[in-house]
């Protein structure tokens, strides 16, 4: 198959990129590992978008607040762009999404319920003439002898056959990496795009700022609306003195300490009084995990834990080389959670709102720029696959227990002791153990078809964990989501970004950085 623009991924950013590329006149194919409409973390959630009207003073105030929150690493110009693009384009979904009341006589645009949002984006993209190939995971990018990306190779899961798509420009919108933590909607978010981009020569940034976390019952990850006012109790019924959510790191450390010592029970009797009657209209999936176990969510106590979110509501991703979301690899763009959010979130979580505005805006920017680039390039001619790990072993083929490897990788990223008490000794220990996992799989792993998809997912998670650990080791300070026990202060000098790349040897670089 051939197309002007190939988009890999099936969440918000992929859909917005597809719509923008099609509007710019390009032919567009979207390949998703899952189903564009249910894939990824947006579909079972409901993102609020960072939303400020065109009033100049309001925009300036919002950007100043966000710049402060970014702790010196955000870029006000990018913030201005995503506010403008979000404000202009979110309402264009109105044909496909029934925007509701804002409670004050107007229309509520900024927050969109997940299942309807992703269904609307699918319908919008189809109406623009986009071809959507569901259950078509990409396995590797292809490039011509000049090093320009010419598309991708992958596997059609339902037909169990290989596919190849040639494109003038390719966009990675594969989402973040949740390391199979169980976070709601994240099973497909295994950092596949990070791996493909890095094999093509791209670098990543901001991976030390994470993971982020959410609260949920121990048996199921849910959305978190009911839990923000929770009281916490130990098994003996003593109320725990947990600092409030606003003191993010102290809150997490105290809760993690208590959870490590034995069950922590959440009590929602102090939830906002207006919430219980309307919870199921706002987050219809949230009551089910309780009702179906016979638990009254708001009246009974139930065991809670922190669920790791990997890079999802964090910061890190493929570094961007210019304002069109190019990656620095010719012909390759990145958008959404697959790209670094450092430009708009800096050292702190972009939460729902900033990251949602980023996904929409970076998707549209990359889509439009890729459409323009595809006017000059066709992706035709000689090309070869750039994938290496799991595809071309350098030694004798061995079998690996991927489930066990995935669990170990998740522990190095999300194990409470390692995550909430970050320090040189534990990070160096993680780096060593992850290296020991990496080298055998890099040299000896091989699979085909659906098994290759699973193998590449494990390799992508392992590679990301090594980059994140190296980045966290290299940043000898505490800043935003990156909190070090051994370096509790924030450096007062000009803040530095970190770029990370490399496979057998992980390389950290500090780019020349001019805050706008």
């Amino acid at each position, binding site marked *: 198959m051939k197309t002007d623009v190939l988009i890999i991924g099936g969440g918000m950013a992929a859909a917005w990129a597809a719509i923008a590329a099609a509007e710019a006149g390009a032919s567009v194919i979207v390949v998703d590992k*899952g*189903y564009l409409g249910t894939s990824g973390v947006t579909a079972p959630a409901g993102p609020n978008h960072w939303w400020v009207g065109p009033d100049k003073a309001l925009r300036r105030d919002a950007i100043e607040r966000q710049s402060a929150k970014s702790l010196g690493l955000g870029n006000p110009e990018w913030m201005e762009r995503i506010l403008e693009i979000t404000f202009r384009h979110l309402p264009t979904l109105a044909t496909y999404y029934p925007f*509701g009341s804002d*409670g004050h006589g107007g229309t509520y645009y900024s927050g969109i319920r997940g299942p309807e949002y992703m269904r609307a984006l699918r319908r919008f993209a189809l109406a623009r003439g986009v071809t959507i190939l569901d259950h078509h995971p990409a396995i590797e990018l292809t490039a011509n002898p000049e090093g320009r990306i010419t598309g991708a190779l992958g596997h059609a899961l339902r037909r169990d056959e290989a596919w190849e798509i040639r494109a003038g420009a390719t966009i990675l919108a594969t989402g973040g990496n949740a390391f199979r933590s169980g976070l709601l909607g994240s099973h497909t978010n295994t950092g596949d795009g990070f791996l493909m981009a890095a094999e093509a020569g791209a670098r990543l940034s901001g991976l030390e700022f994470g993971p982020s976390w959410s609260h949920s019952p121990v*048996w199921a990850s849910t959305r978190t*609306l009911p839990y923000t006012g929770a009281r916490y109790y130990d098994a003996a019924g003593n109320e725990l003195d947990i600092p*409030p959510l606003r003191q993010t790191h102290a809150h997490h450390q105290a809760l993690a300490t208590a959870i490590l010592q034995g069950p922590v029970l959440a009590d929602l009797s102090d939830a*906002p009084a207006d919430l219980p009657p309307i919870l199921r209209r*706002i987050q219809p999936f949230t009551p089910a995990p309780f009702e179906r176990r016979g638990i009254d969510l708001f009246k009974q106590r139930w065991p809670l834990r922190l669920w790791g979110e990997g890079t999802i509501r964090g910061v890190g991703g493929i570094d961007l080389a210019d304002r069109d979301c190019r990656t620095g690899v010719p012909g390759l763009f990145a958008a959404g959670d697959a790209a670094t959010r450092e430009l708009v979130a800096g050292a702190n979580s972009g939460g729902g709102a900033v990251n949602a505005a980023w996904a929409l805006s970076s998707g549209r920017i990359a889509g439009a720029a890729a459409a323009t680039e595809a006017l000059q390039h066709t992706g035709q001619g000689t090309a070869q696959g750039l994938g290496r790990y799991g595809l071309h072993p350098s030694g004798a083929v061995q079998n690996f227990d991927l489930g066990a490897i995935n669990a170990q990788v998740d522990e190095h990223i999300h194990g409470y002791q390692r995550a909430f008490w970050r320090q040189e000794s534990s990070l160096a220990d993680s780096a060593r153990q992850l290296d020991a996992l990496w080298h055998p799989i890099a040299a000896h792993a091989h699979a085909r078809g659906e098994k290759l998809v699973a193998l590449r997912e494990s390799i992508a998670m392992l590679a990301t964990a090594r980059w994140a650990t190296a980045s966290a080791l290299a940043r000898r300070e505490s800043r935003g989501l990156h909190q070090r026990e051994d370096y509790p202060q924030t450096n007062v000098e000009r803040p530095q970004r970190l770029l990370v790349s490399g496979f057998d040897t992980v390389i950290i670089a500090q780019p020349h950085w001019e805050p706008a």
Partner: protein
Amino acid sequence: MITPILESRCNGCNQCVAVCPTLVLAEAAQTPQIVRPDACQTCYMCELYCEQDAIYVAPDQTAPQTVDPQAILASGQLGRIRHDQGWDRENSGEDHLDVYWRLGPLLGDGVENAARRYAGRHATD
């Protein structure tokens, strides 16, 4: 995790096979079968998209559960999510999203409640 699709309700449309983001299900002669149970992330999407209300996702995402189909049929849970979402009456003129704007303020109210309690507790120390 997903439980076996209720054959008495399933019309074999295979919409659940198409929409599952992790391809847990596969087409079969009549009722789709669970072929990749380990990939089920308990996201409820198959339930939401099933117009026959023939799917019950059990609440524990960490382990498969055995359920009694008769108990499920009697539970009132089949179709509940689709109803709460408003997908069973989409062109009824009802505005299913008219309270969605309260998400942000209610999240914030919870955060405030917790912060106030903590401050109160430590003010009296």
